[in-house]
């Protein structure tokens, strides 16, 4: 019961974060006049669509009147007749209820301009990229980090600490660029970008392999950028834990070294390591924007990048919200894991 309650508290506080971020975004948009422009664009667009939908034979005056009426109705409906703060509650509500409106330039594959549709289409692509990269990096980080921590000061330990330093200092997107330059442009082993070959293979298996072939470089770049940090953090946490008294006790108990390491070092180090993963998540979601841009991977990040340059405010707001939402949900999942791993936080 206490467990459920502490998770509920976490959920509530993360939801509060979501609300506050949304609030800040909406206030900034309104304050800087972007919101007015955004809504005006929607009104104009819908009015134009309405004008086109009017029957052919309508008289020009009647037509103009109808269009003007329609526009006024829309303006009022969107609250453009009141200053931006008057619209705040309804705007927040719209975003929260995932009614993100229409994009100006971006389109879904089917040609829809509905932002929900576009984002939902891109979301799995981004998740595919990030999840695989994080899973692989964490595995590498654990494996190498533990090996390095076993004999501090060994050659492996030194090599890994240099590798970690360089890996931390190397922007993932630049690693991606180098990968493309060397492996795609010069050696032609991999495609330079995108998610599918020009006509995607029909056969599901071939299609899957095709995606894998396209994903190899971005995932590789993300992994190279992330793993160094995980290796170093693992090494630090494991070294710290390995010097706790209870580890000596475990050795004194005559337990074989592998059990000592598994049950006494890693098991205890798991919660702080998980914290590192949680914190790393922020970096990798952000990194996705850059990595997707470099590889033209059709995920949320590339959408965001394009939205910036086409000044597609609807997409920017919607995606900022979605990024926060995905992040907050992922954090919550990890919090649940954390509680499962560390009996001390179950109060």
């Amino acid at each position, binding site marked *: 019961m206490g467990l459920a309650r502490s998770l509920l508290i976490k959920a509530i506080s993360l939801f509060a974060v979501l609300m506050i971020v949304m609030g800040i975004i909406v206030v900034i948009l309104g304050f800087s006049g972007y919101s007015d422009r955004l809504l005006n664009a929607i009104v104009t667009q819908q009015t134009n669509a309405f004008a086109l939908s009017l029957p052919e034979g309508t008289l020009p005056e009647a037509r103009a009147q109808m269009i003007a009426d329609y526009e006024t109705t829309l303006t009022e409906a969107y609250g453009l007749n009141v200053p931006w703060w008057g619209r705040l509650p309804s705007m927040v509500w719209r975003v929260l209820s995932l009614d993100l409106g229409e994009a100006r330039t971006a389109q879904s594959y089917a040609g829809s301009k509905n932002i929900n549709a576009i984002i939902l289409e891109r979301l799995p692509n981004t998740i595919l990229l990030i999840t695989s990269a994080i899973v692989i990096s964490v595995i590498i980080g654990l494996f190498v980090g533990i090996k390095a921590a076993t004999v501090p000061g060994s050659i492996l330990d030194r090599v890994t600490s240099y590798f970690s330093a360089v890996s931390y200092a190397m922007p993932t997107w630049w690693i991606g660029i180098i990968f493309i330059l060397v492996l795609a442009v010069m050696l032609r082993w991999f495609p330079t970008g995108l998610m599918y070959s020009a006509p995607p293979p029909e056969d599901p298996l071939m299609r899957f392999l095709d995606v894998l072939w396209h994903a190899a470089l971005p995932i590789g770049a993300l992994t190279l950028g992330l793993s160094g940090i995980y290796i170093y953090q693992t090494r630090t946490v494991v070294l710290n834990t390995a010097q706790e*008294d*209870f580890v*000596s006790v475990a050795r*004194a*108990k*005559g337990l074989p070294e592998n059990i000592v390491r598994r049950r*006494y070092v890693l098991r*205890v180090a*798991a919660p702080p390591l998980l914290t590192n993963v949680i914190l790393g998540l922020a970096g990798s979601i952000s990194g996705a924007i850059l990595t997707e841009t470099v590889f033209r991977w059709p995920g949320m990040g590339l959408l965001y990048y394009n939205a910036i340059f086409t000044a597609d405010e609807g997409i920017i707001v919607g995606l900022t919200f979605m990024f926060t939402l995905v992040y907050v949900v992922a954090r919550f999942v990890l919090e649940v894991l954390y509680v499962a791993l560390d*009996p001390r936080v179950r109060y």
Partner: protein
Amino acid sequence: MSDVSLYYETLRGPVQAVDSVNLEVPKGEAVGVVGESGCGKTSTSICIMRLLPDNIHTFTGRILFDGRELMDMTDSEIRSQIRWREVSMVFQGAMNSLNPVIRVGEQIVEPLRVLDKVQKDEARERGVARMRQTGLPAEAYRMYPHELSGGMKQRVIIAMALIMSPKLVILDEPTSALDVSVQAQIMNLLKDLKREEDLSMLFISHDIALTSDLCDRFAVMYAGRVVETGEAEQVLQDPQHPYTEKLLASVPRLRSDVTPEFIPGAPPDLVNPPPGCRFHPRCPYVMDICSKREPEMFPTGDGQYAHCWLRGDEHG
């Protein structure tokens, strides 16, 4: 233990933490190792369990356990045949000796399960029995360390030390973090266990009064060396080494009106210990020879020995 030395490597040079220590723990008896902080008490116990840290400079001597030479055994032999099976240990700082994320019951029976491959239910039964013996309720088996009080944790650790029915238990300051009333409870528990299980104990403490509560024999350590050994009666009532004498005199008494005294000066730096007898700079009875030659072990009574030139004159 005979002539065991353990030096640690440091930036300033080797630290002579344990230097030519001779120590004997007879079966069924409790031996108290007494000395001030940094005198090598804990390092001595580490030698027996061979739980050596990485920065070892020298580790020599002979350690005979039940007729077997521990120094000749490989690490894996020590691990599978000696640790916990024959010699277990209750560590200083009970608070940090338990893994915070494993239930205490599992930690108690873990050596049974891992070393003897005992089935889960049987291990549990034996674990609960040991917990009862140390005054713990059976419900504690499924608890985590943070749910227990300091005294209960200490009992868990004692139960854990007994689980394999070892012949020797090393107790390293087992009560130093506990309140006096709980400390007395634990000492009573140890007395019971010693009698019931016919255990040999090596009790390591800085508190000579507390040690007298449990131990049949004493070994007084100073600056990495044992300066005096003997029966409790001999050491406490007729100390032969000036350090023992002064140490006893420094204890404030509750039940007599002796005014406590202190020992002037400070213990030496073990990187660069004084030549000869290491106590000579603080000794009130210092003689010429003390700073020149290291005193031998002079017998001063039946089973009592002192490393002091004063006794060398009288008896040798």
